[in-house]
């Protein structure tokens, strides 16, 4: 057993515990900030892209492709201009499509959007290439007034297989709905039609977790009833037979272009998209392109944050330098004693730089732990608010780079105080203390 340089460093750090801990905390916060930003940069985009799954194009009558994606993939709002059912059917005839899925938004349950669609939505539309939709309980809808509930909705409302519910026409704030009858005329609850929950979906980590799903006919029957009420306030409850072409409306179509192996997929999509655009009333959106656009906006904001985090990191380096430099007065005598005992100036220099690097290492490790905690919190908020799942994992390469840079920065910060230690005059520092 022997005393080591490391013992001396450790003792020096614990002797000024308050300064050491606050310095480490400063470094940790900077590192955590940096890591969280980098982690979100990656997984944020992935989470966004997941929602559009394997669709190539989204056709709607929204005001712009970006709005179309925000509505159709993220349920931001209900599109106001419908597409006729015949128009939709013509799409599959006119274009070489692998599949086309009709979707209709506008109904809601306690503020959660209800998506009316066909069974193909669950059969051919996939969020992941290798995994389809999976049910936590029950089965998919088969008939009118059967409804399937997304994971977040089930968690928030307590709906389970067998639960019954009323759907309100038009997306409205939950507070307005709790009041009972029609609120503001925009939305009203159809108590005439009782829906039964037949299935609960597993979480997908996308906005779809915040939605409920039913077939198109269910929505069309409600629409037909509203139309009947306009003519006769005491009109009988409508059924499947009462639906006319005026009711058969959808708000969007998810398209996947048919591709043959060996052909360039993106150019095939391009061809279909530009032909679709020849009808100026249609809005044709390529999800990856629109999400890319969204992320150029978000990305430049993120770069600003990363820049700010970098400034915080540099200032934490300065904090290390100041903490060590200020401690030099106190440790001059210790340095002098070590020199008397045979310690070279170079080794003294090394001790101070190593202490500085230690602050960087401890700050880096604490920062990594802190960032994991931070990501859990940010992840929980994003999941609750937007149904987006952000992996609580750090990007390994960036994390390593950030931690290494932190340690390098900390070592660099140690050079100035280490120079002061190097130059400490033994003769002067050993004068008897008054």
């Amino acid at each position, binding site marked *: *057993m*022997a*005393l*080591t*340089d490391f*013992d*001396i460093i450790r*003792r020096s750090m*614990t*002797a000024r515990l308050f300064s050491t801990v606050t310095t480490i905390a400063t470094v940790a916060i900077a590192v955590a900030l940096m890591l969280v930003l980098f982690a979100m940069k990656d997984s944020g985009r992935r989470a966004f892209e997941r929602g559009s799954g394997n669709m190539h194009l989204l056709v709607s009558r929204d005001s712009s492709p970006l709005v179309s994606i925000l509505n159709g993939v993220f349920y931001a709002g209900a599109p106001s201009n419908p597409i006729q059912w015949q128009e939709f059917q013509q799409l599959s005839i006119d274009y070489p499509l692998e599949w086309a899925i009709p979707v209709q938004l506008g109904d809601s349950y306690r503020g959660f959007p209800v998506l009316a669609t066909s069974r193909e939505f669950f059969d051919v539309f996939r969020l992941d290439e290798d995994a389809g939709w999976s049910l936590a309980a029950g089965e998919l809808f088969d008939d009118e007034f059967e409804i399937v509930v997304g994971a977040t909705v089930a968690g928030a409302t307590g709906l389970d297989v067998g639960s019954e519910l009323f759907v309100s026409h038009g997306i409205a704030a939950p507070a307005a709905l709790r009041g009972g009858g029609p609120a503001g005329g925009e939305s009203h609850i159809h108590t005439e039609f009782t829906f039964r929950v037949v299935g609960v979906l597993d979480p997908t980590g996308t906005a779809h977790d915040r939605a409920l799903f039913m077939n198109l006919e269910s929505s069309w029957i409600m629409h037909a009833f509203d139309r009947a009420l306009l003519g006769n306030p005491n009109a009988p409850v409508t059924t499947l037979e009462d639906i006319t072409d005026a009711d058969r409306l959808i708000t969007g179509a998810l398209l996947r272009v048919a591709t043959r192996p060996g052909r360039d997929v993106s150019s095939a999509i391009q061809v279909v998209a530009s032909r679709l655009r020849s009808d100026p009333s249609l809005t044709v959106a390529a999800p990856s392109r629109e999400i890319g656009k969204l992320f150029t906006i978000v990305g430049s904001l993120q770069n600003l944050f990363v820049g700010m985090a970098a400034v915080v990191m540099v200032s934490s380096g300065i904090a290390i330098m100041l903490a060590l430099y200020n401690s030099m007065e106190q440790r001059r*005598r*210790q340095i*002098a*004693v*070590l*020199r*008397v*005992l*045979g*310690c*070279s*100036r*170079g080794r003294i220099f090394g001790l101070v730089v190593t202490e500085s690097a230690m602050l960087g290492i401890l700050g880096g490790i604490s920062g990594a732990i802190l960032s994991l905690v931070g990501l859990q919190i940010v992840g929980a908020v994003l999941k609750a608010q937007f149904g987006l799942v952000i992996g609580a994992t750090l990007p390994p390469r960036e994390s390593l780079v950030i931690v290494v840079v932190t340690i390098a920065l900390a070592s660099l910060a140690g050079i100035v105080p280490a120079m002061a230690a190097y130059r400490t005059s*033994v*003769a002067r520092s*050993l004068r*008897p*203390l008054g």
Partner: protein
Amino acid sequence: MPDPDAQSPALRIRSLRFAYTPGAPPVVDIPELELAPGRQMLLTGGSGSGKSTVLQLVSGLLDPSSGEVWVGGTNIHGLSGARRDAFRGRHIGMIFQTFNLLHGFSAIENVMAALMFSDVPRSEHRDRSRSLLDDLGVERIDAPAETLSIGQQQRVAVARAVVVEPALVLADEPTASLDPDNAAQALDVIQSACRDREAALVCVSHDPSVESRFDDVRSLHELRAAQQEASA
């Protein structure tokens, strides 16, 4: 690394001069001084006679304006920085008036700190330090050094100076902050510790009561006067 030669004097000084600013009258001016291995010498002088400065020159912590210092046959100022530090760590022990123990380190760690810069195998550091502290009568070897009594701190300081078995021990006013009883005891410990390890001892003091304990007593003032006479 040059090792001290048993045949060479423990300390030999030739024409040593030191001034804090070039051209100013030298603070230290020793034409010649020699100490045989294992012998003990007292250097006396009033305050401002440059006693502490002499020890810092001898230990290589200060560079002289001119002249040479040989410790066990090695010209200490001929060694470069790191080699000189290593030489000091292995062959010179120092004891101070205020002990200069490392705060926050226990008694035994203070002694082990000296061994960090020696060539004693690391596995022996603790045992060697413990038995030396036992020999010198230090009781609470794991207590923080600053919590020990003055007498005990003095012993830790002595242990730290002699643990590397140095050829030369330099003691700077070791009794100045002690009462007469403690002072006598402290000198007993220092002198016997050096004698037991055959280390030469140079003690500087302005305390006349110490003189009777040394066979070889030199006054810095007389050394300088002799020089001036010779050159006159």
